[in-house]
């Protein structure tokens, strides 16, 4: 039995780099991705609806709307809704600002940090509508995909989600 477990564990580790990062997340670490590594999170094709929010600790409207995303993540978990926060903080601020911020505000949703300096190359790959200003949000599932360059309050976010669910 033990051998089987080790074999399985090894298979998981070696077969899927993305999964390795998800395992690291469980250990309450914020993985640092370049855009190619982030991209799978923006294009999952399963029965879950994903809300991907681009934010930064220095972005006041982003910080203001985070509790609404957190609430959605909890309230709609039963409807297979998952919130992912993508931090655009500079990576040297991960330990000093991002993680303390997440701990202080008790953020439970998944958080990753996007470290990819050449934004001109990846912003259009997130959405052709995106100017690059944050906050910005994608709500998508296997059937629908919508992009929003704006801030939300809870009702607005819930309404958009209900349209897509």
């Amino acid at each position, binding site marked *: 039995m033990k051998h*089987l*477990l080790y074999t*399985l*564990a090894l*298979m*998981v580790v070696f*077969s*899927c780099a*993305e*999964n390795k990062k*998800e*395992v690291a997340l469980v250990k309450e670490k914020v993985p640092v991705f370049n855009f190619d590594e982030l*991209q*799978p999170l*923006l*294009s*999952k*094709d*399963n029965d879950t609806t994903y809300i991907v929010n681009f934010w*930064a600790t*220095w*972005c*006041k*409207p982003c910080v203001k709307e985070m509790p609404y995303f957190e609430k959605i993540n909890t309230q709609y978990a039963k409807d297979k809704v998952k919130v992912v926060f993508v931090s*655009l903080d*500079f990576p040297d601020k991960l330990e000093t600002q991002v993680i303390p911020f997440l701990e202080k505000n008790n953020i439970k949703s998944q958080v990753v940090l996007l470290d990819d*300096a*050449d*934004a*001109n*190359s990846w*912003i*259009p*790959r997130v*959405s*052709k*509508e*995106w*100017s*690059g*200003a*944050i*906050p910005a949000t994608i709500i998508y599932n296997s059937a629908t*995909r*919508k*992009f929003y*360059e704006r801030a939300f309050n809870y009702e607005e976010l819930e309404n958009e989600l209900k349209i897509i669910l």
Partner: protein
Amino acid sequence: MKTKSLSILMFFCLIGIATFSSFKITEAEESIAGYTIGSEAANINLKNVDNTMVSYDNYPDALGFIVIFTCNTCPYAVASEDRIIALDKEFKSKGYPVIAINPNNPEVQPDDTFELMQEKAKAKGFTFPYLYDESQTVHAEYGAVKTPHVYLLQKENKKRIVRYIGAIDDNVRTADLVKERFLANAINELLAGKEVTLKETKAIGCSVKQ
């Protein structure tokens, strides 16, 4: 229990592999208000940090303008400050001075009051005007939605035509790692009498606070 969680991991892993190359983008074409390439930029008349009023007419000899919407504390704007100063140094003598405009409403973003703009300009030794958009209309007219946001204007028959919109270069965070100087390349092309090759770029920025 362990076996179960590992099976779940395997399941997600397989889904991850299956969807790895299926990234989809919606092709929505929404027109964003403001200037586009080829637009004629209206004149400005804004208060500078030295309390004088600045308009494009103050520069009769200029060939054009590097108009940069920026602000006091946005990390992307702060990371760009030295490069903006360097651009003014490099291109003012060639006919393209920098005009910096702070589009933020200080009632919404208290870090961007006129007094703090004056302090910023003094502390950094800005060699260019740093203008306060008191009516908060100029950024909307241009279509600037974030800081920093660059508009390169070229004078043509007394009009100011938009030739480039976007980022200063391809690495906001680290000047040393810049591979492509989008804005400088565009100005050099105009100076050489050529058409700008890369007319628009995208960059992460702080949304304009209104």
